[in-house]
């Protein structure tokens, strides 16, 4: 635990020691505003909710979160730091969890900085803050799932660009796996029950049900499981790839 704390602190300091943190936060805040007001027509809808704001988060995360995740491990391997880390008396799991949590806290911080949205919508009308809180939780979980995937792929390659592209593609597939277009493709060669399994892995369907204010254990468990599996995969990949 002490190790994980130290890793999180160090990672967070690193984010803010470089321009990454500021660029990410500014772009995230600007883009989420642009999406909500221009494409989501937050004002014109005349409803005091933040649905247009949260609806665009998956698409915003699709490009911004892989940019945070791509450096988690590939940078360590590139600089040769991995040799230093892996010879410290610390379990590999602690590194994987610590680095993941740091990235998650960082994205969470960017998410928290969107609070003026909540204030505005409360000022404009009588909004359901329960739904808003649930939506924030859903958005945070979605970001965590993206980060867990991105972290794993970042461990698989030394090249950050490759890590970024692979993460975008895989996250995109996970987002779309509930879409009819994708399922029709799988139906061509997979039995129906496997197609149903694929359909149930869609980030989007679980995310939308949370943002509607329904905190279903299944949806929360789904994200927890996804994050857990990808973190475990990261531990394996780090071990496999560290010497390359």
């Amino acid at each position: 635990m002490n190790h994980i704390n130290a890793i999180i602190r160090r990672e967070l300091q690193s984010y803010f020691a470089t321009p990454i943190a500021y660029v990410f936060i500014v772009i995230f805040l600007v883009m989420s505003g642009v999406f909500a007001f221009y494409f989501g027509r937050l004002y014109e809808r005349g409803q005091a909710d933040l649905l247009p704001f949260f609806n665009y988060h998956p698409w915003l995360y699709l490009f911004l979160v892989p940019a945070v995740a791509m450096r988690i491990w590939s940078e360590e391997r590139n600089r040769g730091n991995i040799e230093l880390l892996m010879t410290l008396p610390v379990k590999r799991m602690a590194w994987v969890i610590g680095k993941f949590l740091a990235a998650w806290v960082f994205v969470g911080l960017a998410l928290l900085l969107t609070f003026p949205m909540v204030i505005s919508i409360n000022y404009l009308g009588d909004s359901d803050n329960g739904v808003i809180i649930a939506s924030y939780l859903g958005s945070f979980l979605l970001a965590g799932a993206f980060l867990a995937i991105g972290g794993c792929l970042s461990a698989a390659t030394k090249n950050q660009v490759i890590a970024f592209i692979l993460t975008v593609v895989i996250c995109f597939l996970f987002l779309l796996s509930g879409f009819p277009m994708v399922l029709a493709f799988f139906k061509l060669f997979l039995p129906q029950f496997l197609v149903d399994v694929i359909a149930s892995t869609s980030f989007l369907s679980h995310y939308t049900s949370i943002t509607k204010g329904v905190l279903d254990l299944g949806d929360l468990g789904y994200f927890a499981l996804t994050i857990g599996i990808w973190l475990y995969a990261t531990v394996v990949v780090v071990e496999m790839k560290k010497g390359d």
Partner: protein
Amino acid sequence: MIECSHLSKHFGDVKAVNDLSFIAHQGQVLGFLGPNGAGKSTTMKMITGFLPPTVGNIKVCGIDLAEDPVAVKNKIGYLPEGAPSYHEMKVGPFLQFIARMRNIPYAQQQSAVDSVVARLNLNHVYYQKIDTLSKGFKRRVGLAQAIIHDPEVLIMDEPTDGLDPNQKHQVRELITTMSKNKTIILSTHILEEVQAVCDRAIIIANGAIVADNTPTEMESVSRYHHAVSFVADLDTVLLNKIKDMDCVRDVTYNARLKETTVFPAQGLFIFDEISELLKQQGIQVSSLKMEAGRLDEVFRNITQPVQKQEVKR
């Protein structure tokens, strides 16, 4: 103490390390020598628990690395090749981070950091970012993180590579002062370094040990052992005269440096004879010395035949 028995590491078809066994005792400074790609770094990476050996067994201070890797890592301080670190961090916070990760109790962390900062003269770069430091300072930061927990075993991959002569001297002095109660392994291809700090040298070529001895004994195998060198203007007549002496096996003359080297016949001591002869002939000698032996020549002799065989295959 480090015990390695029958270590092998294969990367696909390549045998980077092949059946390597040795024991390093406390108080010993062991130098790994060898051409690039000989397997020095790979061996160190296996001892520090970074890479698992394909075959073989490693024990550090009596603990089996495969059984309890974390306990072994606790005993070892490691300076990887190129002294990697977090470049965006400042020296002080970086060392504090390592102290925490090294399980140093909270109350002693700051004093551990202060102590290595003082030993490696890092005081005035304490608040500087590591990527703004010179190569010498970066290397010293790397050394500082390796010794912050006062490890029983210290493993350093090319600790003085890229340092200027003053910095090399400092690092070597530090190694010598630490050597009394530690087991130290360092790799290098600077042969003078082996003479300066190591009391045992292992030459590795193609993943196997080809020589294991003290540097002094290695030198005595050299053709240059007890050879006499002097710098003076000589003519061929005199050169031939020296060559014809009974106690002389061979003579070489370096025209650029005007340096003559006289090799004695097997086991003989010819310094007096040569200096007597030069005095008789009234030759102005600007330097006259007896050689202990040249490690680089021994190194080449031992490692090159192996490489040639490799090419033939």
